[in-house]
């Protein structure tokens, strides 16, 4: 073989650009090998290996943050290594770590194979990280499907009737949304490749080329249908109204760590896609995208908050409150075109949401019994007395989700509000304020259940499933989350600049 080919390959070693994703895939395979090599008694090594691997990869990504490939396209334009992509890599890795921590607690209550769970989490995370950097609709769709199919399996992991029902619902709704999105992509592909139109291109799936084509044809009918369909597909991922139908049932039926995975990572995937598409590729269709986003934001904010008001099952409650958080984030996305700080605000909000959500899910995992779907508000009665540590973490997490200073969630909301005000979205802001006030009601209802109800009258506490004790790793992770929720609320330090830098 000609040596020069190898030399060219070595000098342009593009694979280095996706080292973290490759390592994740490798780690997933190593897990399978571990399962084969070690006897069943040593099954505990699997989550430990996963966590160690994830933390190592996270460290590598953080310390190599100004990667050599930054602001470059690789693999013929399939990937674009933007600053936002780096931020989201860290986000998905953090999220995966927390999912695994929670899974250690939750899976201990079931007699199920472990290794597949962690394996799928790793693969899905790798796909999410690729998606965050994708610069091409084909890679975008492939990565998104990898994520979705992985989640189909995870959602129905427990094989109880509710879990299977949730899995089926997620499958049907997910398939519907995927097909909508695929149809939209195909329309865009066809239109952009039409030689009659100006600026037509053979590379019509490449973001840059597609954006150039759309800019040259700002009112093409088929393209606008394609755009709406793609946006609808993404709206399913983030649980925006009217594509939020699946949220409460699936969140309730899915195992707690998977619910957390859906609530945080899967939602964030939708928003990275939305930022890339609505913010840049579809920028010249602002006349269409802006009203659609405004509609999504307004209805999602209202629906999420008011629907959450009446819930007694905490998994449904957090699902619907997650819908309302999608509404706040959509408010930020709607502001992106006119307020440059909105992008940084969305990233900050996502991180704030990650920290607070996992704090809450971590507590939920400890309170759940063998029947994971059955987690009622009543089960939290007397938590402050029984498990003060968990109650404190829960209160901080919920307070941050509600957006109360000095917790990090408040800063997230503040940035989004400033961006929205800069963009002149006064009507949406008014709705967001109503949303915040309503959300206080149900978040405080939850805190009340944990703190107020039985203080003073310790007698007739309703029966609740046995509460697991907190082991070292989980305790450490939850403390770190709680600390971050508090400290980042008033001192952002270098993180503020890092997140907003582009």
């Amino acid at each position, binding site marked *: 073989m000609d040596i020069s080919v190898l030399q060219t390959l070595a000098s342009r070693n593009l694979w280095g650009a996706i080292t973290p994703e490759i390592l994740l895939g490798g780690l997933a395979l190593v897990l399978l090998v571990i399962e084969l090599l070690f006897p069943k008694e040593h099954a505990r090594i699997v989550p430990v290996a996963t966590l160690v691997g994830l933390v190592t990869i996270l460290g590598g990504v953080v310390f190599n943050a100004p990667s050599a490939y930054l602001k470059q396209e690789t693999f013929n334009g399939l990937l674009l290594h933007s600053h936002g992509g780096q931020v989201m890599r860290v986000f998905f890795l953090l999220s995966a770590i927390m999912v695994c921590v929670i899974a250690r607690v939750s899976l201990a209550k079931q007699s199920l194979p472990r290794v597949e769970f962690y394996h799928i989490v790793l693969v899905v995370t790798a796909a999410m990280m690729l998606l965050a950097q994708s610069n091409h609709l084909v890679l975008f769709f492939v990565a998104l499907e990898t994520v979705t199919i992985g989640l189909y399996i995870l959602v129905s992991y427990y094989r109880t009737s509710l879990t299977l029902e949730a899995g089926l619902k997620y499958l049907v709704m997910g398939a519907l949304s995927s097909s909508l999105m695929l149809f939209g992509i195909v329309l865009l592909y066809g239109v952009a490749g039409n030689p009659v139109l100006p600026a037509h291109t053979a590379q019509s799936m490449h973001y840059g080329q597609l954006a150039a084509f759309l800019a040259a044809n700002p009112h093409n009918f088929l393209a606008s249908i394609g755009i709406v369909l793609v946006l609808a597909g993404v709206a399913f991922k983030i649980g925006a109204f009217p594509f939020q139908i699946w949220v409460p049932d699936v969140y309730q039926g899915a195992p707690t760590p998977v619910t957390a995975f859906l609530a945080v990572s899967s939602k964030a995937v939708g928003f990275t896609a939305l930022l890339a598409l609505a913010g840049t590729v579809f920028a010249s269709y602002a006349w269409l995208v802006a009203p659609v986003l405004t509609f999504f934001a307004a209805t999602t904010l209202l629906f999420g908050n008011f629907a959450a008001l009446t819930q007694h099952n905490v998994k449904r409650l957090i699902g619907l409150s997650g819908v309302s958080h999608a509404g706040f984030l959509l408010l930020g996305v709607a502001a992106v075109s006119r307020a440059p*700080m909105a992008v940084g605000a969305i990233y900050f909000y996502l991180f704030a949401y990650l920290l607070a959500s996992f704090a809450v899910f971590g507590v939920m995992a400890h309170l759940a019994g063998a029947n994971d779907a059955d987690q009622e508000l009543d089960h939290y009665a007397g938590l402050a007395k029984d498990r003060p540590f968990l109650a404190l973490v829960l209160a901080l997490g919920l*307070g941050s989700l509600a957006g*109360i*200073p*000095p917790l990090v969630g*408040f800063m997230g909301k*503040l*940035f989004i*509000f*400033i961006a929205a*005000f*800069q963009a002149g979205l006064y009507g949406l*802001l008014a709705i967001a*304020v109503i949303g*915040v*006030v309503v959300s*206080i*009601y149900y978040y*405080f209802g939850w805190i*009340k259940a944990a*703190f*107020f109800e039985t*203080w*003073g009258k310790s007698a007739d506490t309703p029966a609740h499933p046995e509460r697991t004790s907190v082991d070292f790793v989980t305790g450490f992770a939850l403390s770190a989350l709680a600390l971050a929720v508090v400290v980042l609320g*008033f*001192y*952002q*330090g*270098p*993180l*503020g*600049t890092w997140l*907003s830098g582009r």
Partner: protein
Amino acid sequence: MSTLPFDPLLAAIFAPLAVALAIACGLPKRFSVKLAYVGFGLPLLLALHVWFYYGTAAQTHGYAFLTSYSTGLDSLGIGLKLGLNGISLPLFVLAGIVGFAAGLYAIQSGAERLKIYLMLLLVMQGGLMGVFASVDIFFFYFFHELALIPTFIMVGIWGGRDRNYAAMKLTIYLTLGAMLSLIGLIALYVKSGAHSFDLIELRRVIAAQPLEVTVQHNIFGLLALGFGILVSLWPLHTWAPLGYGAAPSSAAMLHAGVLKKFGLYGLIQIALPLLPAGLIQWSHPLAWLAVVGNVLVIGFVTIAQRDLKQMVGYSSVMHMGYAFLGIAAGSTLGVGGVVLLMVAHGLSVALMFLLTTSVYHRTHTFALDEMGGLAQKAPILSALFVAATFAGIGLPGFANFWGELTIFVALWKFSPLITALAVAGVVISAVYGLRAAARVFFGPATPEFSKIASEHPVSDLRWSERLPALILLAALMFIGFWPKSLSTALDATLSPAPAAQVGAVK
């Protein structure tokens, strides 16, 4: 000149927070209580220190003790900037005094889970010191919320009857008010083009380029509504009597006495100088709401109360009406009167809540109809209560007198008719104040009270209750006899009138 080797303002904010953290980390109860004295005492000492040295301290942009610290958001124009001017100095001192008194009263109260109770009060105290020391309006808002959250929790856990309902209502009303004012502050941040929450920077930018008149109208309206909810402007006041009725005494002292002043302070410090056209637009509706709603309607409602604590809660809503009137007048005299009244009302209402709880410990009821003749058994309590009532009515010799008097004088120029109506309010407060004092302390003991007194022997105020009450009363009378101690600094900051300082409509 202040000679402390550290920033007294930052220390006053972080001392209580640090003590709260130490208690949270599992300090034994004995040490916690001792440390709590430090946590409540240090802010008071530091506040007195800056009060004493304010006149001689170096002034930068009208602020003394100006310092700033970065929190990593400089690119957004957010930073912890601390300083005091003539408006914030009196309130900073008020926070120190009331905080100390409330702390002392809480320590002796023997509440259940005293450690957590003290911890929450300390967090509140730290927030309060921060509210009035902040020059950055983001941190101004931030510290307010920091102080507000413990209030909700304290009402929910240690509250009296209806505490769950009261905690929920308080939370929702105050969150709505806070959110609206936050949007107003964001509007200032964006519309001024300053892209900074630093008040000094905002004043500079707006002085160079005043906001459009319609923008001023809208932002002022938003702030007046948001802050109005927080200060219990009629008809958005319904959370206040309910909340104070249910709140444990120290929390009520700190909230009604100090935290509630946040909204008025925000209007004076931020809205008046930056949005003068907004004041012109809104001053009449605001004044009418305040005089008819807060002063007269709530005044009569207060007279009708049969529950002592509810009565104190309503009277505090009523007195806020005067404060709004002074703001509507907008002159140096009027606004200065509001600041004096804020301090005076803060001290007197805190004293009232303290004494009311002490009365309850002796009568085991708040119902006025079931009380009577307490003066024979508790003469010192009754003397203090009568003094507090006089202060609340606004008799000379107490700080309240100067606040109300200057507001009325300033108000005459604004509208004689409103002044006449407002002065009628003084008669109303005399009616309910004196009637309540007479019911509780004088006359023959009612059968109900005799029965309770025979079951639980009534003693006079203990020293641990007397001390905080005396501190508050002494402060009231000190300012009452020597208002110049506050008004010199106030006058310097408020001349010319705030509305004419920056961005005046030409």
